[in-house]
């Protein structure tokens, strides 16, 4: 080896190949990408994004169909990529899915939703063909009852139905409350590493936040992200507004209550969100009530769809969402669907405290929409989560004092005096005890009587039949006072005659079709003139006549009801209707507490606002979400996802 010893370097014995070869001669390879959801079910690609290989070149894919067991476009083939390190930039799917995992033979990467939008996913291209699977959260499930829609749009798609069947064979449906607009989804914050370059600069020079265009359909931690941001972030930017904000908050907290750790998104389960038109303005509560019942009517076929598919159902409503849920269940109960849902959770329900009775004669609402006599039979258990700390449903929250006093002073001066008395030095319970007797529950004026009461909603309903009261006409049209009272009275009488006839016509026309539709699992027709009875499956002629009588009585009293409303169920719970000596003691509710059908959860010592569950304190989370709701769903019901 003398010759070798004289060389200025040691020769390499490695053959030419993967390393050291000129770029133009390195091997190329393919990537075969498939897509699945968190249940492992194959999903189709719409756009498979792009891969940047080690040389920086970008490749798009050819979509192909995979096997006969996968949907069309289930595979994406990227060809002739340079072997080595690469980056896949997968677009978020338009339906609101989020990438949370990326599996290869050797690696299983996991991400938080939105995490990969800026930097993509690292991928090693190997010789031959690299197989990889992108895992997405299923899209959110959002039923929009605010728009006119064909009946099928109020139902789940086959794909959604398959999801809930595969994910534990259960579904939880959430209904938001009063005064919640539809809103929009939030966004993901765009991560910008260059922000570090501004370290030490004055805040006014800080770069503004930028946002990915992709919709964020899961909750993001506003506080944590604000801590890492140069400016404070608004929850609405990240988590959306209105019903969408409620949707992501509730879904996240429910998953967390079921055991979701905030890190591993594989078990994360979607809920069914119902968006309904409850935002009628803070002074038009009755219109919101009418909207709730019309929405509940549209919800009923969805319950039938799920039940017919064998999927266990839990309903969770907030505030006036209770009226949506109770309407749907009342209709189901009327047509004989017993125990259709495992649990109905009524969280701060904005309905009367005797709403759950089976006796419609106990209804103190002048138009007969205060109770849901058949709803109980459609639910195995009904859990009432209530709190006297709820300043919206009752008078106990100092934060709402200004609004409440202003509202009360307009309509009920006596109640304002009561409020002054109540805010004196006496302990609250003492004062409330006196008020109950002294003010005949005027203290518990329900929001529907604030400012507008019944009049506007009713007159909107019967625009084509006005005037219906003599006094209203005189007040509304003083310039026409020259008309003789006799003529006006005749006009009013003629309007009533027409209205009564048309109401009876509507009842006769829709009575049987309503029953037929419901028995077929279809959406029942809406009542329009009889809209206040949309919580009934159908209205027979006798019910319609009774309604007309109630309406006339209310009109004769200038839309002011004779009887005080019941206090809100979300404020007093089932306390007032089951206490010894109560005027409105309810035998059925008392029995249902005894046999365990109705379950009260008094949250007065930990829930201090009407909507405290949207961004819950630790106590609200542990006590209400965990112990009162999710423990029941998981231990005593059909479960929540696969938890």
């Amino acid at each position, binding site marked *: 080896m003398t010759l070798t010893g004289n060389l200025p370097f040691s020769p390499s014995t490695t053959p030419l190949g993967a390393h050291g070869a000129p770029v133009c001669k390195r091997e190329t390879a393919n990537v075969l990408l498939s897509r699945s959801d968190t249940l492992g079910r194959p999903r189709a690609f719409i756009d498979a994004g792009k891969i940047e290989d080690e040389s920086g070149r970008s490749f798009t894919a050819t979509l192909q169909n995979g096997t006969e067991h996968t949907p069309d476009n289930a595979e994406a083939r990227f060809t002739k990529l340079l072997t080595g390190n690469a980056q896949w930039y997968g677009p978020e799917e338009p339906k609101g899915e989020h990438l949370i995992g990326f599996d290869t033979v050797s690696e299983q990467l996991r991400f938080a939703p939105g995490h990969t939008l800026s930097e993509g996913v690292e991928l090693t291209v190997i010789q031959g063909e690299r197989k990889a699977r992108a895992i997405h959260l299923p899209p959110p499930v959002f039923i929009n009852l605010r728009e006119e829609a064909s009946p099928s749009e109020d139902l789940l798609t086959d794909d959604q139905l398959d999801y809930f069947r595969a994910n534990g064979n259960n579904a939880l449906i959430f209904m938001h409350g009063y005064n919640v607009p539809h809103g929009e989804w939030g966004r993901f914050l765009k991560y910008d590493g260059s922000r570090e370059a501004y370290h030490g600069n004055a805040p006014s020079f800080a770069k503004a936040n930028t946002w990915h265009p992709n919709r964020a359909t899961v909750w993001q931690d506003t506080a944590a992200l604000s801590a890492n941001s140069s400016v404070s972030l608004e929850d609405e930017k990240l988590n959306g507004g209105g019903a969408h904000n409620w949707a992501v908050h509730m879904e996240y907290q429910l998953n967390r209550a*079921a*055991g979701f750790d905030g890190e591993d998104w594989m078990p994360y389960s979607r809920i069914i969100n119902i968006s309904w038109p409850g935002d009628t303005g803070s002074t038009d509560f009755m219109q919101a009530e009418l909207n709730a019942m019309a929405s509940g009517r549209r919800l009923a076929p969805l319950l039938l769809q799920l039940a017919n598919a064998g999927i266990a159902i839990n309903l969770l409503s907030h505030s006036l969402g209770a009226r949506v849920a109770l309407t749907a269940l009342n209709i189901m109960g009327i047509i004989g669907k017993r125990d259709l849902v495992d649990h109905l959770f009524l969280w701060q329900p904005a309905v009367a405290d005797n709403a759950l009775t*089976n*006796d419609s004669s106990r209804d103190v609402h002048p138009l007969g929409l205060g109770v849901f006599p058949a709803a109980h039979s459609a639910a195995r258990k009904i859990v009432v989560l209530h709190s*006297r700390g709820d300043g919206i449903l009752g008078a106990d929250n100092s934060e709402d004092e200004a609004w409440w006093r202003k509202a009360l002073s307009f309509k009920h001066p006596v109640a304002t005096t009561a409020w002054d008395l109540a805010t004196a030095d006496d*302990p609250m*319970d003492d004062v409330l005890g006196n008020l109950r007797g002294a003010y005949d529950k005027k203290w518990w004026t329900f929001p529907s009587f604030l400012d507008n009461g019944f009049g506007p909603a009713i007159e909107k309903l019967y625009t084509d039949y006005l005037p219906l009261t003599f006094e209203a006409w005189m007040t509304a049209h003083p310039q026409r006072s020259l008309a003789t009272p006799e003529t006006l009275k005749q006009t009013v009488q003629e309007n009533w005659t027409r209205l009564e006839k048309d109401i009876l016509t509507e009842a006769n026309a829709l009575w049987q079709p309503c029953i037929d539709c419901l028995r077929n699992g279809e959406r029942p027709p809406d009542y329009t003139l009889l809209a206040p009875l949309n919580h009934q499956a159908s209205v027979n002629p006798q019910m319609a006549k009774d309604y007309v009588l109630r309406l006339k009585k209310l009109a004769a009293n200038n839309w002011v009801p004779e009887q005080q409303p019941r206090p809100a169920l979300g404020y007093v719970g089932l*306390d007032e209707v*089951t*206490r*010894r*000596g109560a005027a409105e*003691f309810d*035998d*059925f509710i*008392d*029995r249902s*507490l*005894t*046999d*365990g059908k*109705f*379950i*009260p*959860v*008094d949250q*007065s*010592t*930990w829930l201090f606002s009407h909507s405290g569950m949207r961004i819950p304190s*630790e*106590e609200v989370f*542990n*006590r209400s979400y*965990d*112990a*009162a709701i*999710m*423990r*029941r769903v*998981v*231990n*005593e019901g059909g479960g929540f996802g696969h*938890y």
Partner: protein
Amino acid sequence: MSIGVSESGRYVVSAHRDNKLILWDLQEKQWNTLSGKANLYSAYFVPGQNAFLWQDTDNIVTAQTVDGDVLKQFQHFPTYGHVISKDLETYLSADEYWNVFSGYGETKRPVLKDGVVPSFIGAGKLLNLSLDRNNTFFVTAGFDDDSSVIANHSPLKSSQRFSKYGGVTLWNANTKQPVAKLRGNSSKTHATISPDGQWVVSGDEAGNSITWHTSNPQHRLRAARYNSGLYIDGLSGDLPDSDYFDKSGLIEAPRGVHDFTIAVAFIHNSEYYLRFGNNSHFTALFKTGSPWPVKYLDLGESPKLVTYGSQYDRNTAIATSPESGTLVMGHQSTGGISVYQFDPEELTLERAWVVK
């Protein structure tokens, strides 16, 4: 506030939110603050002795006589309720997750450790512990009910999130094994065992109160509801509401009495017990094993008692000595107590002492 009453009815020990431990002498009508470092949930009187149990904020549990002699002392996790037997040999304690342990130190063993929901954090109340005088049984009572059977779910299966033993459970005090799940309650639930170990009585947030005989724990004896009467189990669901209730033994109830129950407590040996309603200053007297309230007793409207304000987490501030007929109740907002004496012949409850 937690309270314990001596079997003789002479002494009361209480632990307060401000960490004070107070020993009250009902005979002399005076009291002494023994410590400023007491665990709020730890005041308990040793049955049959003039000695009590408490824990300080350094987590030392002490059993000491009213004269100050220390009988037993050990380091222990912060207890959320504990009980001890007359011979000081059986010690049971609960932590904030409603895990239950027997013993302490080297002899500490888990009795119940099967999930973190519900818990003290998660239900807003203690898992109530109750031990009979003969050390035969003890009872745990917390939140709601559970329909699963004992054979299918070990009380020590700690990997799951939701406990199967959060409701009322009867346990064997020697083997520390569950004997029976006592079903029928809803939401926040309290239960206690009679001194002789023969009866378990419960009361809950939905107004249900149930009695079981420990020799036949599957048989549920409902107490009557004050307004509607005794619910008749097993009827079909289509009858008029009034058909489900037997009113034959009801007595007239005063306005303001309430079924929704914060606590139950034996007041005369194992023969009579009291049931305390939420937001009410009345208590109902029951004869054990009978569903009908015998009498409604007025505890007095003022000072306002711990039964006001939906404070199910403060049912430990209601304590009795069934042997002497003594009832002691905390007040709603102050650290004071009211002391009552029960007369088993006249069936009256006299307020003997009020400290505001």
